């Protein structure tokens, strides 16, 4: 799985489908930001056991 390749056109198309008016100049920044976050979270999650739990109701204890 490659999560690092997000193109500016993909961001613009996603924004259109989501009915979001992007500010000028944002699509490239969003592509870069999302690629980095997705890649790093993916790497983090890949190190977890497949059945590692999700704690939906957060409790610090």
């Amino acid at each position, binding site marked *: 799985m490659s999560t690092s390749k997000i193109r500016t056109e993909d*961001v613009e198309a*996603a*924004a259109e489908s*989501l*009915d*979001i*008016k*992007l*500010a000028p100049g*944002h699509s490239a*920044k*969003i592509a870069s*930001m*999302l690629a*980095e*976050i*997705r890649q*790093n*979270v*993916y*790497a*983090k*999650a890949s*190190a*977890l056991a497949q059945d*590692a*739990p*999700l*704690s*939906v109701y*957060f*409790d*610090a*204890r």
Partner: protein
Amino acid sequence: MTDLQGAWKLDIAAVGSRISDKSVSPVALTEMMLGRIGRIDSQVLSYVTVLKDEALKSAEIAEKEIAGGEYRGPLHGVPIAIKDIYDTKGVKTTACSKVRENYIPNQDCTVVRKFREAGAVILGKVTTHEFAFGFDSHPTRNAWKLDHIPSGSSGGSAAAIAAGLCFAATGSDTGGSIRAPAAANGIAGIKPTYGRVSKAGVAVLSWSLDHAGPLARTVRDLAILLNIMAGQDPLDPHTKDVAVPDYTAALTGDIREVRLGVPTDYFSEDVQPEVADAVAKAIKHLESLGAKVVPVGISGLDGVLDCMLAIAMSEAAAYHQSSLRKTPDLFGDETRLLLEAGEMMPATTYINAQRARVAIKAAFRQALRDVDVLVTPTQPSTALKIGQSLSRIGSREESVFGVSARFCAPFNISGLPAASVPCGLSTEKLPIGLQIVGKPFDEVTVLRVADAYERHSRWHLEYPAIAN
């Protein structure tokens, strides 16, 4: 009544004591603070709204109650400020955003209601980074160097306290937004355990990462404020039914049995030398007071900031979903960018970040198994200049976000209680913060260690030139 000259330097514990014995008048104290705001805040720019008439009226009521023997406690008659994301009945609560510029709540949030019941005098609302989603808190300036950022998002709260424009203020912390500005302005702040303080009526940034808490001049004041703020709230399902101790009673000054965990990895990487030196001296100081220093390895923190961003951006985008479509141009550029990107965060990324969070929490539980607290720098460097987008720290070029969140955000992810106290000044005269982190719901030990340090240090007695 005594002369009020220099009273702004007192902490709540001291000024409250003088109010209770009627040697200081709440009205005179409030007039003094309003005068200081009028003279000084044109440079610091910490207040969004000053409530002159309401504050004086509250002070008059407090004075009459105290004169009549109805003393409510240490916050009675003490002027404080409220971050502009906390709902205040009948007073604009803008979150420093054009999206909310005309929002006037019809009731107080839980924390403000508790403060009013404790007799506090609310001087006004202080700035936040827009919707608390960032760290430079424009247009507020760092009280120590006006061409530097106060950090954020509770930048108005911290700068106002440092400049002597209130005795305390509320803050909120999603990735460091209480602790980072406390460190950057040379004051104290605590992010309590997730679920300790109600967020009902506080604008949401990220439901699962947001924490409400106090900022003040001293640790004793944090304890006084937390005594009022803490507790389960039926209006906030995130709060937990955990007994609230008397935090002030825990401040014994005795830390002889306390085991201080000093992380050997993540929290010592790429730290400005002056910050590393100040923190090392503070740890030595704590050791000289009898604490036992224990090196601690904490594994699995790589990627923690991206997990925090994935969660915060997704949850913030959900919260602002309607506004982003209806009035996108009313958001500031930086906030809008983060919300737009949050809309496009895959659900799997959000869920995996929350799953990683469980593992990170377990790593901290393991790290805290044989120690009572962890001690780290609050930030890897001192405050950045206004407009400075990157800072070279060790081997990395770090953004304002990185500087502010790198050492703080792990404790939003884990929900652990964490305080910042001043532990030094750089050669540039910029404050340095020491972060003390405890076990879940053990704010008592965090505050006890922080107070013990403060009792034997002088940093909380340093004031920026603009305050004098």
